[in-house]
């Protein structure tokens, strides 16, 4: 059991647990958008409350960090938005932030011209 009052836990570091919960919330958002679009394409008339609440939960998780870097409060705009496309735009903004803080950036290779031997040496130094 993770004790969030402690800065470290016995098995998993606290930061890792927070990272996992954020990623879980992001995944929930994607699933909600997928479900909503699937139903709409099948001819159902759905409101987008589920998508809205999932994105809002994600915002609650990362909001303070996002405001620190981007100086923008998305919480209010999530509440005011009714259109699905606008909600997806907001989600994309949050996703870009997650990529920026290297939470979803998984490709870590360096790109360089392989025929340039010195470039390869420099890329692998240090």
């Amino acid at each position: 059991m993770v004790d969030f009052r402690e800065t470290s836990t016995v098995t998993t570091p606290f930061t890792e647990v927070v990272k996992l919960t954020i990623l879980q919330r992001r995944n929930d958002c994607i699933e909600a958008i997928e479900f909503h679009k699937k139903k709409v394409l099948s001819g159902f008339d759905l409101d987008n409350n589920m998508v809205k609440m999932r994105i809002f939960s994600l915002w609650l998780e990362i909001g303070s960090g996002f405001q620190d870097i981007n100086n923008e409060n998305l919480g209010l705009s999530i509440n005011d938005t009714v259109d699905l496309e606008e909600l997806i735009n907001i989600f994309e903004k949050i996703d870009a932030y997650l990529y920026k803080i290297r939470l979803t950036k998984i490709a870590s290779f360096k790109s360089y011209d392989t025929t340039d031997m010195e470039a390869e040496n420099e890329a692998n130094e240090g």
Partner: protein
Amino acid sequence: MKQTKDKRFFYSNGLHFTDDIKKNVDRAIQRVFIKGKASLIIVDGVQGEGKTTLATQIAEYVSNSQKKEFLMDLQYSRGGEQFKEKLAKCYTMKLPGLVYDEAGDFDRKGSMTRYNRDLNQVFQQFRTFKIVVICCLPHFKIIDGSLFTNGIPRMLFHCHDKKKKYSRAKGYSMVRMNKMLHLMRRKNIPANEIYKKVYPNFRGSFKDFEPEMSKKLDVLSSTEKFLFLMENQEKLTQDQLAEKLDRSKNWVYKMLKKKKLSEVLIHKRKKFYDKKALEKLQIAIEKGEGC
């Protein structure tokens, strides 16, 4: 009218080698002359694949890129002793490129010898000389490991598959050289097989020098080889006698004439003397003759 270069000896870029080789040599020049760091280019391959030709072509290109004339007599050295001597000369004359041919004497087996320690020190300090050194070897693995630790050998050109009109070269970065060394050590892959296991950065080719230049290089290269052979057979030139006896060349010349000692062999206008001449001159020194 614009003069076009002979297609038998030059590519469309006006050089003896292809653009990939040019691009990488440019990067080495940039590293040495702009960043002020050391850069050693290794050219390896088995006998007769064109190592010396490519190395000399690179040295010529380096000189031309720095708007200097390529002086083959000064910018070509064989063996460690001559390399050290010519490095100093190139530094004083501000010549930007130097070929270190037959660098097999600088190997890891002899790394504990004083000679190798001196040479190692030269390599570690040659960053300050601002000279691009091109080193010719049968295989890059014989280079002393401490150079790799210091990151001095930056690129390797492996010469192979020589044809009548051109020869091929593969380029390997320092990273790939380290990978090859690791594979040879850990997986016991033979030295000559390793080039098939690691993919090169690029494949290029180079053509031979023009007949005039080729002949000059051949004379320089073969004369040095012949001198070495003669020294091993204890046949010495007047210069070598002077060096061994610690006397001036003029003294040796006069003494040989005085003692009526004749040469045993003449090769390309150089006179070779046998062991007896050396012994007689040593006796003359002991007696204090000609001092």
